[in-house]
């Protein structure tokens, strides 16, 4: 309860830190905030151009010459949110060690700032994706209303894992080195660049053990196939997310007092 109150009291700081992050990132560029949109737009445009026009890959079940690019963008949208929140929460306590030692403020504000700014980044990417979809002649439907659910599950999962490992990282710094490698493997174990049906059926159950598979497939259902995400494949990631988040919060309360000692 006290922690919740503390977060509420620090709401202004959290929001101002997110703003500060974007401000300082684009502070000395003449285009400023425009880069916030140009970056994701360029990223998406490259996928669209290279993969569709050059490789001309076709995707079963969708009638558009840019199908593969669309598929890839949908998966990337989900995966990048997960990877950014997870990857950055991991180092957030260590990177702000000096601040944590000198100023008394609720530490949990730091991963929340990371989550907030990753979310803003992701929404901009989403905007860019919609623009490119429009150009490619792929119109999304009202199924987009499902996206907040997927975003919530992704954030909970990423924050849970990131916070838990970020706390351990304060004491065992190897975590900060291992996790980026694991994330790279994880990316290839998730159907972002390939379609889950491409892999042999006997490995399919194995693929679904990965909680990100269900989430990314949900993104693809909504954005590529214009249908509702398969709730049954979402239940598993949601459960994992809740478990991870509870575990992380439990660890946070236990380790909160020891963290400043080790920084």
């Amino acid at each position: 309860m006290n922690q919740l109150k503390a977060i509420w009291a620090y709401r202004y700081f959290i929001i101002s830190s997110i703003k500060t992050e974007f401000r300082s990132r684009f502070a000395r560029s003449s285009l400023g905030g425009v880069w916030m949109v140009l970056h994701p737009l360029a990223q998406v445009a490259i996928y669209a151009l290279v993969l569709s026009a050059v490789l001309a890959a076709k995707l079963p079940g969708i009638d558009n010459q840019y199908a593969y690019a669309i598929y890839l963008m949908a998966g990337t949208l989900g995966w990048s949110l997960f990877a950014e929140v997870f990857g950055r929460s991991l180092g957030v306590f260590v990177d702000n060690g000096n601040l944590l030692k000198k100023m008394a403020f609720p530490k949990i504000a730091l991963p929340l700032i990371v989550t907030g700014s990753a979310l803003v980044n992701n929404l901009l990417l989403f905007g860019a994706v919609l623009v490119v979809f429009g150009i490619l002649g792929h119109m999304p439907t009202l199924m987009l209303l499902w996206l907040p659910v997927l975003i919530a599950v992704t954030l909970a999962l990423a924050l849970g894992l990131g916070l838990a490992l970020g706390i351990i990282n304060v004491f065992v710094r190897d975590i900060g080195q291992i996790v980026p490698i694991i994330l790279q493997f994880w990316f290839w174990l998730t159907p972002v660049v390939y379609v889950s049906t491409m892999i042999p059926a006997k490995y399919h159950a194995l693929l679904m053990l990965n909680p990100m598979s269900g989430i990314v497939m949900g993104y693809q259902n909504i954005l590529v196939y214009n249908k509702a995400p398969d709730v049954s494949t979402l239940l598993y990631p949601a459960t994992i997310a809740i478990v991870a988040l509870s575990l992380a919060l439990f660890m946070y309360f236990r380790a909160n007092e020891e963290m400043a000692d080790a920084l």
Partner: protein
Amino acid sequence: MNSKLKIDQRECPGVQNSELNIQNSKLISPVLEISNIGKAYRNYGSELWRILSWFGLRFKPVHETWTLQNISFNIAPGEAIGVVGQNGAGKSTLLKIITGTLKPSTGSVTVHGKIAAILELGMGFHPDLTGRQNAYHSAGLMGYTSAQIDAVIDQIEAFAEVGEYFDQPVRTYSSGMQMRVAFATVTAYRPEILIVDEAMSVGDAYFQHKSFDRIRQFQSAGTTLLLVSHDRGAIQAICDRAILLEQGKVIRDGEPEEVMDFYNALIADKENSKIEQVTLDNGRVQTISGTGEAKVEDIGLYNDKGEKVEFVGVGDPVELRVKVKIYQDIPLLVLGYGIKDRLGQVMYGTNTWLMKQVLEDLKAGNLYNFIITFPINIGVGNYSIQTALHKHDTHLSVNYEWKDLALVFNVVNIDKTAFVGSTWHEPKIEVKLI
């Protein structure tokens, strides 16, 4: 209950509200209560055991290092307390526990009110943001909301006095300007407890005065001040109480002069050295420390007629006679002395090393008489003389004897025009109509 109401009669001249504060500390509930805190850094051998310990599996830490132990004291509203101690004595750990960045391993800290700490000015400043944006950001870090900051931002801008620069990126600032904005932001709200680290010594003289004025204003409005410093002058000028930490424990808690004298003796050469504090007839505490190869046997202040005096007139020539006995053969001897005012601030001090009159090859049993002549060019008041006998240029390496309050005397104005201040100048004022 009567004993609780008894008013401490400690002598605390100079600081106007100090007497009131001493009464307060007995009558009003403390603003900060520190009871029996200790801080241990635990080493589990492998960090895995630490992580498992969060989940209820208790393992004994392989190694515990206690940086603080059994610290207890209360602080009353408006008190100004100096925290002194050598590097590694536990000062910063104690401050971090008070501000809440570290949690004590034992005991508890109860704070009534808001704490502001000036530990490292400009913490968390972003070079690419303007002074104004940084002020908002760091006030946010102190837990204030946007509306609360809106209310004081003009005042921060005015106090910082950086002009147009307030809306320029901080990277274009000089370090002094950055400090101004940081100080103005930290002190935008009057806290119940203000913690000031040595950081204050940076910046230009003008702003230093301005910041000290603000700190004094806070203090008279009831803010408790916690000053951490090695600077004897600052502690004795501002504080009405000092706490000396040594190896994680409070070893002295009391009158700044007495505590600083003890600290001074403590930082001297420690081998074979002992420190003795005796209460003199007038109630003041004298500190004598050293290894004892040479000692001041007798000291006296004499006027130009050769009479031993306790009262001297402003501007009068005097002789300070110091008799030193050698107890063991020593190769070198330096005598130093200092005249201190009633607050313990040194008005003047020198030694025979600086005067290039070091004695060499001294034999046990010999007696030396040092005669120092000077005019009393200091203001009216009560003064004391401290003496030091050591081998080199300071008492920090080999200290034979350090004696505070070796002699007490008074300066009175007999035949000079009335004046104020701590030094005596003989001015001539010429006025011309132009």
